[in-house]
């Protein structure tokens, strides 16, 4: 039997306690231990971006981090953004701009965009495309995703000024 560790992680505002093997990926902890299946697992080696979550407010690949490393940290998944009927502005914009088709990449896109909007001015659509270059979508061709993010950036800029 391999080593196990007790961890205390705040997930979407809720304190969660678990005993985990060190090799358990954060993505699998979220999906399988906690049942938060909004976070998707695509490539499992940090290429597709589907498993992106926020740890202490920064976007990270949850397939490249171990659950044990999240001990004492604050993790936010796509479930934290909103719910059906109470979607946040970014989710509404994805809805309005048809920024998803199969939906597999969407949780990663939403979390990646959340961090991008927070950290970069995203003045041009090229900036948004560069920012999304680590998130793969095989349905939409990205056009609608860029438009959805553009709309949020523009509306927030409008509010701020």
């Amino acid at each position: 039997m391999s080593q196990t560790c007790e961890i205390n992680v705040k997930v979407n505002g809720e304190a969660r306690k678990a005993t985990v093997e060190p090799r358990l990926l954060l993505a699998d902890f979220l999906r399988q231990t906690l049942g938060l299946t909004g976070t998707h697992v695509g490539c499992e080696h940090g290429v597709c971006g589907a498993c992106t979550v926020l740890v202490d407010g920064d976007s990270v690949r949850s397939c490249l981090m171990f659950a044990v490393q999240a001990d004492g940290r604050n993790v936010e998944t796509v479930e934290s953004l909103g719910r059906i009927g109470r979607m946040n502005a970014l989710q509404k914009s994805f809805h309005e701009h048809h920024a998803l088709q199969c939906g597999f990449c969407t949780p990663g896109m939403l979390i990646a965009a959340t961090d991008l909007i927070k950290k970069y001015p995203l003045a041009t659509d090229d900036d948004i495309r560069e920012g999304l270059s680590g998130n793969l979508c095989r349905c939409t061709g990205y056009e609608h995703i860029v438009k959805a993010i553009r709309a949020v950036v523009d509306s927030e800029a409008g509010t701020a000024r």
Partner: protein
Amino acid sequence: MKPASFDYVVAESIDMAVASLAAAGADAKIIAGGQSLVPMLNFRLLRPSVLVDINRIAGLAFIEETANSIRVGALTRHHQLETSPVIARHLPVVSRAMTHVAHLAIRNRGTIGGSLSHADPAAELPMMALLLDAEIHVASAAGTRTVAARDFFLDALTVDLATGDIVTEIALPKLPPQTGWGFEEVARRHGDFALAAVAATLTVSGGAITQARIALTGVGSTALRATTAEELLIGHALQPPLTGRAVDAVRAAIAPDTDLHASADYRRHLAGVLTRRALEAAWRRANEGAA
């Protein structure tokens, strides 16, 4: 696609990290950002018996200005380097280079010490270390030592680190006055590893180049300096025939590989084109008086 079992040690200090490494023996690994290590664990290309996690060592993430250099702690994340006002003021070439490193979610997590230790042949940070004649600080159970960047990168994914060694910081000398810089990279997609990248600094006095540094990445087993080309430039103004000779010298000095992404010939051609652009940008900035 799940890692094999390992034991996990949280190091709370550098002393504890090197002691844990020494105790664990040859197949222990340090985990910092994990952005290169964890994919290899997930693929089971690596099956270390012990992972020593250094993420909780206090005081190992810092960017600090000294009289002549900028000290960067090993646990500093790429995004911190990318957005640091101190780096932007004294080493703008580094700020620019960091924007080419992977994607935000990778830059949020990946560390300076990790990138230097991993030494991917197409990564930007080893190239910056070489360009700026940086010094890399290393600790082990036996003590500490300092290695010049030019002696640190030995081969692809191979550096001057022994079992039990850990990089603790890098000291990046500030650019001299009257120094301009250029950075040029081509990758298949933004954030991918470079097919070729070139960085240059030119220091100018009285209309002539007094110091020239040209570093490349993606075109060999390690990042490298184009010393022959650098020497050609000393004592002259940058003009087209001279730039052309420097470009030829860079192309002659490299032996890039052919792979899935680009042929050796294409990479050699590209390295020349990017050298020209980087030198011209550095010359322009040096003569504007802007660092």
